[in-house]
């Protein structure tokens, strides 16, 4: 069992966590590292998937989906966190709306694109400042941690972030 998990493809591990959490609605803005996960989510008939134009819009759509009875996830790059701060605070935190945020965390160790570095460094601090819990699993922990992240979001009635950095996606 452990051996299987260690060998698990990172995208598949996250997807299995999403499924175990019972996520049945997803909004997304792509990141290169989310390609496979987006395909898995997009092809899943049990998940209504809406590609959106901007992450903040996704926060609004996911809030609507939750109020309508769904379990929502927002799939995005951490640059999108910056685009979503006001919505996360004055919609989700204010009204106590749970949201699973699966975030490709760019701008960390090994980043080739200099423009990713400022938001990469700020991402954990921004989440901490908003008191939004953040979890950073390894691929072998990802299924469990993603499922737990949604439970935590429901329990706290708040967004919860799963940060997946370059090392995570490189694991094979």
């Amino acid at each position, binding site marked *: 069992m452990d051996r299987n998990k260690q060998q698990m493809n990172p995208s598949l591990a996250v997807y299995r966590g999403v499924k175990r959490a019972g996520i049945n*609605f997803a*909004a997304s803005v792509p990141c290169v590292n989310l390609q496979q996960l987006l395909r898995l989510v997009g092809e899943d008939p049990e998940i*209504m998937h*809406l*590609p*959106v*134009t*901007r992450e*903040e*819009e*996704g*926060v*609004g*759509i*996911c*809030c*609507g*989906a*939750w*109020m*309508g*009875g*769904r379990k*929502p996830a927002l799939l995005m790059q951490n640059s999108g966190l910056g685009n979503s701060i*006001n*919505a996360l*605070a*004055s*919609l989700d935190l*204010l*009204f*106590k*709306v749970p949201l699973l945020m699966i975030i490709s965390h760019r701008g960390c160790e090994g980043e080739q694109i200099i423009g990713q570095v400022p938001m990469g460094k700020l991402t954990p601090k921004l989440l901490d400042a908003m008191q939004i819990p953040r979890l950073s699993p390894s691929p072998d922990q990802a299924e469990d941690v993603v499922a737990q992240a949604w439970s935590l979001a429901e329990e706290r009635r708040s967004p919860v972030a799963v940060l997946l950095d370059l090392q995570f996606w490189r694991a094979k």
Partner: protein
Amino acid sequence: MKRIEAIALAAEAAEAQEALVVCNIGFPSRELYALMDRSENFYMLGSMGLASSIGLGLALVLPKRRVIVLDGDGAVLMNLGTLATIAHNAPRNYLLVILDNCCFGSTGSQPTCTHFGTDLEAIARGAGAESVRTVANAEGLRSALAGDGIVVAKVEIGNADVPIIPLSPEKIIERFMKSAQQAERS
């Protein structure tokens, strides 16, 4: 047409249609609350620009419920991308009413670009929306409120003298969700 008159027409239609209403922040929500408070009203207290998106999420997951969004020109200009998402995903149970008073009415009536000629109907069409129209009087709005898609309602500048909504965020969302989900199940 005054904005509060437009909101009154929308509130009457929403009640008759047993529709859920998502309302933009500031004076529009206050006017709606003063005119006709219903547990089916979601009063946005922050997140300017997202009424249309919240309503879209609701309409997609509650296909048996009609969803009416009361938005403003300033708020829509802030989240124009969502018009493209709405155009390609919005179901027939969704109606976005953009109350266009050509200004930021809740912050001192500073002009928006619609004051200088930006045409929200044309933008919505350009985004790919098919059912879009502009109305400038009560008759036009009444007829548009029977349909779906996007309606731009031209209204006068000015806020009614209405108090701040006394409900807590928890109360607003709790009763809204109960109404939304109960009716969907029945």
